[in-house]
């Protein structure tokens, strides 16, 4: 008791004593004494942590204590446990101790949100995201409230808005739809042209890679899109050869480049899967710009460098048609100028679409657009500046569409659009805007507007609306955005596996790996499956390419579908997905520490302190005589290292069974000496190294491999769910949940794993995020 008294005396002299929570404080300290002081006093100082001293000095990280307590890391399982009520009082007290940080009351919308919103408002589909600078800096979330809008960003939005408006309503009219056919390819480098050989009426392509390992694209002749827009490319093609799998016809676009035998990167537009069928037309709709040329690369491991014979991808001809519009006049006119006389001449020739209308019509166009963009009804006074800029232009130039474009540009450059929350008539409109932004990265639709107009977005209707928004195809944007940020898949393309070590890695696989993850998470939400699927599962969403990478037989064709794993498969769940395994390496070697820390923090949900400064970095070195594990075992020697690394290294060890491309391995690969210029070869430049040891020890429980580790993690689903809830909260609001918010989030998690379901969790967390006080 003397200890407690001492603490209370000390506290009596500082601010805490004056707070109304002193009753709670006393209770909390009693619980600390009962459950924590045995180990964390100044003598024992377990884990190098003296709680008594820290509380005494008022110098402690309340959020770390909070996280350890709420996730059940502390007190350790074998020690005496506080009752749920006792734990809650401790958490509540810690939440009060959190140093107040008031995040900015507003944030700028991200470039993704800008482009999606403007596209939806204009009813266009043009992706200009890459032309707008990434302004996220080192923050994890695009929505982070610490990011300020800058002049550079606004200039970029100005330019993007011009381009999108020009695409929707081109000042010089619409190019007629044209169709052209081509079956010959442009001249290519002598080393490669032998792999596209004449056959019947077209060309037969075999698979080969250029000497730097990149796919070598063959460019079509007579190909020059007249304007930027959407085009239908129809390939009359067939698979040739007696093997079960499909051949992948990869369609690229880029600048024709013959100068070098080392092709410049093209961007992959679409993949066509050629199966066991007769010659058939395959049509893909793609976005092209003038100066871009379409090129093809036909991948099948069975047709490597064949310059004769009858195996490969046969393409008789390519028919291009465009620019195409889903309707005429284009939807953008019907949406923005709804109800006005739109004159659209036939598309046979160059077409100027005109809208003939006057002042009042302009007011209604601006009002409709602005109310959607700002998510609020607007008074005449509020609309006046926007009306005026459009009407001034109309008066000066007499062109209704051109004048509306100026007004619209002002609307999408306004702080009411770019900074959120905007100014909303009632709270329902604010909630509607937040929901649409979180789930669709866009502006509310008509239904949300109607509900908001009645101020009827309350906790009852909200869940129904969230389910509706989630079911819409636009929610794919949220899944993609979440994967990009939470799972860092936006860095996926920044890691390029060494082709010396992993010669089978290719662009097609690189294309599908992140798609697997996004499709899987979408599936979990759509089917409302248990959150434990984040850790382990008996299925994933795969296609032929991914299945081959994972060693799963019998998956033919590149269409993504649900595929069950054999019971003894190490796959299932996020940790063992190629995308995650790849993005946590440098493309050469795997580091159990870096990968372990990443998985531990982002998927398992452990709270880790940043690595201490001034320590020697352990770089795994496969050439050393000691094993990787012995090198990392250095951590065990020091208590202060071990306190964190016991929550890092085990995950990394278990995942050592997967190489930098996510493929299963039992032995390491060691690069062999290779001088002169790198020349790709299918067998790579490596030799077999030491055996992989994927065993370890997680909190006293031994495991032999990843499957064992997953079993250990499945015992407690709440930590994973709680972590996901925190991430979703931060994604949606742009700031990390306070400790009080975290208590609420934790309360939402059902105690049984089978009751803790993904869609429910998403709906509950987003409801909370956007309606919390």
């Amino acid at each position, binding site marked *: 008791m003397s200890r407690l008294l001492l603490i209370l005396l000390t506290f009596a002299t500082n601010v805490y004593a004056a707070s109304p929570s002193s009753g709670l404080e006393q209770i909390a300290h009693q619980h600390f004494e009962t459950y924590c002081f045995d180990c964390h006093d100044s003598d024992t100082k377990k884990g190098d942590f003296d709680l008594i001293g820290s509380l005494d000095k008022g110098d402690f990280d309340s959020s770390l204590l909070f996280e350890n307590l709420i996730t059940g890391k502390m007190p350790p399982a074998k020690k005496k446990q506080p009752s749920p009520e006792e734990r809650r009082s401790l958490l509540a007290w810690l939440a009060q101790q959190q140093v107040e940080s008031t995040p900015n009351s507003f944030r700028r919308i991200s470039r993704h949100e800008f482009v999606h919103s403007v596209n939806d408002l204009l009813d266009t589909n043009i992706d200009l995201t890459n032309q707008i600078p990434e302004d996220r800096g080192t923050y994890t979330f695009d929505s982070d409230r610490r990011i300020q809008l800058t002049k*550079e960003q606004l200039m970029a939005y100005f330019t993007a808005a011009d381009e999108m408006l020009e695409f929707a309503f081109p000042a010089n009219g619409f190019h007629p739809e044209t169709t052209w056919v081509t079956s010959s390819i442009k001249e290519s480098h002598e080393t490669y042209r032998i792999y596209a050989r004449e056959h019947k009426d077209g060309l037969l392509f075999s698979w080969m890679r250029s000497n730097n390992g990149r796919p070598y694209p063959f460019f079509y002749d007579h190909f020059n899109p007249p304007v930027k827009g959407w085009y239908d490319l129809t390939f009359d093609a067939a698979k040739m050869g007696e093997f079960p799998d499909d051949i992948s016809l990869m369609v690229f676009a880029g600048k024709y480049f*013959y100068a070098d035998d080392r092709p410049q990167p093209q961007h992959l537009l679409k993949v066509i899967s050629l199966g066991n069928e007769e010659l058939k037309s395959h049509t893909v709709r793609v976005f092209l710009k003038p100066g871009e040329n379409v090129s093809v690369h036909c991948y099948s491991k069975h047709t490597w460098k064949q310059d004769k014979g009858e195996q490969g991808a046969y393409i008789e001809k390519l028919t291009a048609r465009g620019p195409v519009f889903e309707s005429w006049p284009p939807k953008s006119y019907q949406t923005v100028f709804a109800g006005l006389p739109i004159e659209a001449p036939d598309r046979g020739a160059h077409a100027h679409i005109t809208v003939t209308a006057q002042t009042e019509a302009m007011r209604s166009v601006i009002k409709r657009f602005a109310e959607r963009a700002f998510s609020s009804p607007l008074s005449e006074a509020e609309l006046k*500046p926007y009306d005026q800029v459009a009407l001034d232009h109309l008066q000066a130039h007499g062109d209704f569409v051109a004048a509306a474009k100026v007004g619209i540009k*002002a609307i999408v450059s306004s702080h009411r659009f770019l900074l959120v929350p905007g100014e909303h008539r009632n709270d329902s409109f604010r909630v509607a805007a937040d929901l649409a932004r979180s789930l669709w990265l866009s502006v509310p639709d008509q239904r949300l507007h109607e509900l908001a107009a009645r101020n009827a977005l309350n906790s009852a209707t909200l869940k129904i609306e969230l389910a509706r928004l989630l079911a819409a195809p636009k929610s794919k944007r949220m899944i993609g955005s979440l994967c990009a940020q939470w799972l860092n898949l936006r860095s996926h393309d920044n890691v390029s596996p060494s082709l010396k070590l992993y010669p089978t890695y290719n662009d097609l696989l690189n294309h599908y790996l992140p798609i697997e993850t996004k499709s899987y998470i979408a599936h979990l939400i759509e089917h409302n499956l248990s959150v434990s699927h984040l850790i382990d599962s008996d299925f994933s969403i795969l296609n032929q390419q991914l299945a081959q990478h994972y060693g799963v037989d019998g998956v033919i064709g590149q269409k993504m579908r649900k595929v069950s794993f054999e019971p003894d498969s190490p796959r299932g769940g996020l940790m063992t997905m190629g995308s995650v395994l790849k993005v946590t390496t440098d493309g050469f070697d795997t580091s159990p520490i870096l990968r372990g820390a990443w998985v531990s923090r982002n998927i398992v949900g452990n709270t880790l302190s940043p690595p201490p400064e001034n320590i020697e970095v352990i770089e795994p070195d496969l050439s050393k005589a000691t094993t990787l594990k012995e090198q990392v075992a250095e951590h065990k020697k020091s208590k202060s290292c071990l306190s964190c690394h016991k929550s890092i290294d085990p995950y990394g060890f278990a995942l050592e069974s997967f190489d930098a491309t996510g493929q299963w391995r039992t032995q390491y690969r060691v690069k062999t000496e290779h001088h002169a210029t790198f020349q790709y070869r299918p067998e790579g430049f490596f030799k077999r190294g030491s055996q992989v040891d994927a065993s370890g020890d997680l909190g006293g429980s031994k495991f032999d491999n990843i499957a064992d580790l997953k079993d250990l993690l499945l015992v407690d689903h709440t930590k994973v769910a709680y972590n996901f809830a925190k991430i979703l909260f931060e994604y949606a609001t742009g700031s990390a949940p306070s400790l009080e918010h975290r208590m609420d989030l934790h309360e939402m998690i059902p105690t049984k794993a089978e009751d803790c379901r993904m869609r429910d969790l998403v709906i509950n967390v987003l409801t909370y995020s956007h309606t919390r006080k």
Partner: protein
Amino acid sequence: MTRKEFLKFGTALPLALHSLNLRAAEKSKTPPKRVMFICNSLGFYETNFFPKTRGDLSTSTYLDGIKTRDKMTVFQNLFHPGMSTSNHDSEKSFLTGAPNPEAASFTNTISLDQLLAQHLGGDTRYPSLPLSIYDRGWGCSWNSRGAAIPPMHDETLIFNTLFGEEDLAAKKQQITNDQNVVRCLYRDMQQLKARGAGASKLDSYRTIIHELEAQLKHEEFWLNAKKPVVNNTLSADSEFAFSTKIKNLLELSKQAFQTDSTRMITFTMDWINGAINVPGATGGWHSFSHHGNQPGTIEKLTRIEVDIMKHLNKFLFDLDQIKEGDGTLLDNTTVVIGSNFGDASNHTHNNLPTIIAGGGYRHQGHTVLKKPTPLCNLHLELLHRHNIDAGSFGSSEQDMRLLKG
């Protein structure tokens, strides 16, 4: 703006409005500082390039005849780290120092010329002028997002861009529209403020709109400013098209500097497959560059390189003939001539041939570094020399103060 912010965001056209007003006055006083980068993408044959006797440029086959020899320094033992697996793609890193340009997922970083242009270029019509021989869509200039800035390659188009009459009606209308949009946004803020909308939000936004307005004023200024009148002296010699192209692009560079149309030019001397014709040799420049120490091939490669040196010699001499302030245009222009290859025949990236000419430095003639030194050290020094407070650049280790005076 802190250095970190500067590097993070870059600034498209940094411009204090008052500098526009000061521009005329300032011009008469101190001549502006300019920089030019020339990257010969297939290198120079080392034996002919470097002086055979240390410190004596007259012992270099290529440099002996350079008339402005006393205004240049040749650096030996500079290299680009991180290019181990790289080939011709190393050109992409010439001015950025970004490693592994050959990786499929390579993303570049901002190039030195663009960083300098942000600082030097604000008062000119074109903050930077990237040029190349061919139309490949990329050269040595890369923006702050690591995207290629396509160089201009068509001499007539370049001449017209710099000095020709343009139909500016559409551009002027665009600026007017944007200025109206800005006025609309001010009015909107006014009426919202009257209604008591969030003050901090409005304040932060107003600052940006204000900056945007200044930017538009800057653009308007240049749209309305008359272009300098320059006689078209471009050569049309088609027998030696390659040679003509280099000559013309250097002539345009001289005129652009002379008229203060830009203060930052980057000339990427790129290559494509196929034969070129220079006095004394016909054949593929790329094929010749892989000479494999065959004397016949080296002879032909030398003819091409001698031809290139001839034009560079004239260019430097011409700049030095133009009086400016107390010196010459060359004295106010730092001309960096270099390559991404040390030995193009073997695709190595060490001992990069590097010349710094002009710029008013106390030139050393021939500086041989004791140990292999990242070219980016020199890049960093050039940033510092132009008052850009960068802690590092690309693969730089330190500013070694290799330039004197």
